[in-house]
């Protein structure tokens, strides 16, 4: 076996030892980190109080407001409610 081949085998042995050494140090470092800084589950999100779903066909507050405003406007303008349409109500 020539010298170069022997050298390459020696180098390979040393290099593998160095890699295992470095990575073993990393393993213990990671274990230490995980031990010192353990995972904590995030606190559960507070649940919002569930409101009973409104019946689909029941008029909402906005619908009622629109109906009232439409009738008042119709009365004020002396028109029938069907002649004008209030489409949106914004509260301040």
């Amino acid at each position, binding site marked *: 076996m020539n010298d170069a081949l022997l050298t390459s085998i020696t*180098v390979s042995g040393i290099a*593998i030892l160095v*890699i295992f050494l*470095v990575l073993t140090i990393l393993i213990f470092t990671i274990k230490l980190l995980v031990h010192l800084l353990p*995972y*904590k589950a995030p606190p559960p999100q507070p649940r919002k109080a569930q409101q009973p779903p409104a019946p689909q066909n029941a008029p909402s507050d906005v619908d009622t407001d629109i109906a009232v405003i439409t009738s008042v406007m119709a009365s004020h303008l002396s028109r029938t409610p069907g002649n004008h349409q209030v489409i949106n109500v914004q509260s301040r």
Partner: protein
Amino acid sequence: MELTFSGAALQILQSTGFSAINSGQVIMLGVACVLLYLAIWKKFEPLLLLPIGFGCLMANLPMSMMMSTDDGGLLNFFYQGVKYEILPPLIFLGVGALTDFGPLLANPTTLLLGAAAQIGVYTTLVGAVYLGFDLQEASAIGIIGGADGPTSIFIASKLAPHLLAPIAVAAYSYMSLVPLIQPPIMRWLTTGKERKIKMAQLKPISQTVKIVFPIVVTIICCLMLPAVTPLLGMLMLGNLFRESGVTARLHETSETHLINIVTILLALAVGSSMTAESFLKLETIKIIVLGLLAFCMATAGGVLFGKLMSKLSGGKVNPLIGSAGVSAVPMAARVSQKVGAEEDHTNFLLMHAMGPNVAGVIGSAVAAGVFLSLFGDPTAPGPESHAAIESVVQSMVQR
């Protein structure tokens, strides 16, 4: 100036590439077309083999000034990024930004599988010396077994720049062949019972550990192997961008635009070094054969170490995840999952295999660091190289 019709026609003919092309360049154009075919139609690492193939094609067109050695040529400028080790670390920055070290942190002993897979590097080193390469060349060839393209290019540019082209092509070609190379070796070295082992679910890891990890790895590894700092430091910086949560823009840029741009520059630069003089040699065939040996031995080393861990842990480790110890992220992990699922379709090994897979990235970078510590000139590229870059920049400014 008087020109006759025949004289003008002759002059135009002599100014074309056809008059200057030689047989070596014709063969290399064929090689370029094969690479393009493999990339486009066979989908073999297309993101790399396509620009490498096209770079090779342009470099072998006579009078195009696209060879890596053509001073002032476009690809010569790109090649400076390889020569001065700028591009591979930037790729590592992007890889770090893309990598989740969570599975590794949840099961840190899988780092040993990343180390075991480096056995392929060292058996190939011995094989290369046996075939007549010197130790520096053999180291550059052996690192192909790390299945990590940027690391292969980084080491080749430092230890054996004249072998850069065949080493890069072999590394990326075999990386694309991981799904074909690994499964037969994995099946051959494991029993059906071992392949069916189901591993326990990974523990969650705190975000603080994920943030501290890249900093600690950089300090420990770069103090032990300073030569590896450009690669490992950038890998960990990219990962810190990802995990810190305060650099969203840098993280996004690193994992998308930057890595894509650098990949184009790196692959074109490698392609431009594929000239007939550097590629059509007996050494290239030897490197291709040694590259295959490197991948096979790396896979076998990982699987055999996985078997050992399985025995020592009382059957809690599936040895198939050992094959993912070669880098090739995430393809090698997918192969572990696929071979495991063939035996038992309810066995999900992917996340377990990601641990050794990312460990392989660290392992191959450490292996590179060991080679550079042993054979590299710690002062290289040194101040004179930076002066060389400065002179190139100054000549551009003067123009």
